[in-house]
């Protein structure tokens, strides 16, 4: 049986690099991505000189500035990052890779299916990926995602060498590495600090812990950390081929208020008129803006119910425009996910009670999805006249 090898493509500080554009010289100075407008006041990726001052991504802006008063803040460019990163993923898909990527700067794919296309071995696949990506990418390969990521961190792009960890060597390779590496998984952000407080400093020490004790003390995150430290990881989930349906409108002058709402109305109409939609409803959209003073802004919105009704879509997106922190020179709208073909037909008769029941059922289903099976209950009278209060009524699941 051919073993599974996962390749990791890593671009450290991708978001910062994308935001800097042709001002990359700033990377040799203390610099950090400024907090996104309207979000928590925490800085994004930081340059190496900023790290030397103890400034790390996710730090509060005030603390970062007090640690490094000369820190230069770079306006984030979520639109630019998305577009550049999609180009990277497209290039990987062009060599036949099925790519998984949850965040800009790190992508993973399995090499097994590509060997036949690129020389029959892993080295051929890595060479093809390097040719497709050009300089700057760090490549690592290992039997699982986490180990491949650790391998890519050790690769040196200037030497154009990839780090490959053989199947049986993954656990030994990970053993001396620090537990802080677990932070590469969003669900394990808090765990390394706890491990360090307990005196557990390397992944080897984590791997040596008994599973039962880890499960009892740390629950699911602990078991995931244990699996990762032992060289095991979940299977990759490659992205679905994107169907880019986007519209952008240049605004003649710095627009706000009613003008922005008009622009949004026009964008919604244009997106709904696109042939690629093929009658499908829209499930998730992203509204974006480019500011007059530089920088971009992006807000993703998932509709409670997939819809192709322009009025309903405008009602959902409209309030987001109020979050725009600065005058915009252009406004964009992109479909992030399609729903089923528009199927909710208008009713011939006015059946208000039926409509109300349908809406209530939908609300109950959504509440259960978000908060569990007991999110919606109803009081059921069992013996209302009982002299013993706890026998009078019970809570029963609300019928959706």
């Amino acid at each position: 049986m051919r073993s599974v090898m996962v390749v990791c493509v890593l671009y450290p500080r991708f978001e910062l690099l994308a935001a800097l554009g042709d001002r990359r010289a700033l990377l040799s100075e203390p610099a950090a991505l400024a907090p996104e407008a309207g979000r928590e006041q925490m800085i994004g990726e930081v340059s190496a000189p900023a790290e030397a001052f103890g400034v790390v991504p996710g730090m509060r802006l005030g603390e970062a500035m007090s640690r490094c008063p000369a820190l230069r803040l770079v306006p984030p460019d979520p639109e630019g990052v998305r577009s550049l990163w999609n180009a990277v993923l497209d290039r990987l898909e062009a060599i036949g890779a099925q790519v998984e990527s949850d965040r800009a700067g790190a992508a993973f794919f399995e090499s097994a299916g590509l060997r036949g296309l690129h020389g029959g071995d892993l080295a051929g696949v890595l060479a093809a990926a390097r040719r497709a990506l050009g300089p700057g990418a760090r490549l690592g390969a290992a039997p699982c995602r986490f180990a491949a990521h650790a391998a890519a961190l050790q690769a040196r792009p200037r030497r154009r060498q990839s780090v490959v960890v053989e199947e049986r060597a993954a656990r030994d390779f990970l053993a001396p590495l620090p537990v802080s590496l677990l932070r590469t998984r969003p669900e394990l952000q808090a765990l390394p600090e706890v491990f360090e407080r307990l005196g557990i400093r390397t992944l080897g020490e984590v791997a040596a812990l008994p599973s039962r004790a880890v499960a009892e003390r740390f629950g699911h995150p602990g078991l995931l950390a244990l699996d990762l430290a032992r060289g095991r990881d979940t299977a990759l989930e490659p992205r679905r081929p994107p169907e880019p349906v986007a519209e952008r409108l240049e605004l003649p002058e710095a627009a706000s208020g009613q003008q922005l709402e008009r622009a949004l109305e026009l964008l919604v109409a244009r997106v709904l008129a696109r042939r690629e939609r093929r009658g499908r409803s829209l499930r998730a959209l992203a509204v974006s803006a480019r500011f007059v003073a530089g920088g971009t802004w992006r807000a993703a919105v998932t509709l409670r119910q997939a819809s192709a009704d322009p009025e309903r879509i405008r009602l959902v997106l409209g309030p987001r425009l109020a979050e725009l922190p600065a005058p915009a020179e252009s406004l964009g709208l992109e479909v992030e996910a399609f729903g089923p073909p528009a199927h909710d037909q208008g009713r011939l008769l006015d059946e208000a009670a039926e409509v109300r029941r349908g809406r209530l059922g939908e609300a109950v289903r959504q509440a259960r999805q978000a908060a569990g099976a007991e999110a919606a209950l109803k009081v059921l009278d069992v013996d209302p006249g009982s002299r013993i209060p706890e026998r009078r009524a019970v809570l029963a699941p609300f019928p959706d």
Partner: protein
Amino acid sequence: MRALGTPKPAAVEADERGVPAAVDALAVDSVREEWIVEDRWWTGSPLRRRYFELVLVDGRNVVVFRDLVGGSWFLQRA
């Protein structure tokens, strides 16, 4: 399915007649009503409760009962 209004243990101080004087460290202002419930006396696990509807000094109306079988006090929405 979950029963509603299940009794919850309470810290009740009673006087020598067994009438509550304080509930969860709050003094009782007045006793509005008192009654006894006896049920399932024909089974091996009979139910005997002495209920009191009270007004506390903070103005709250509460219902407590003493389990005459086990001797403990409980709060209950009656």
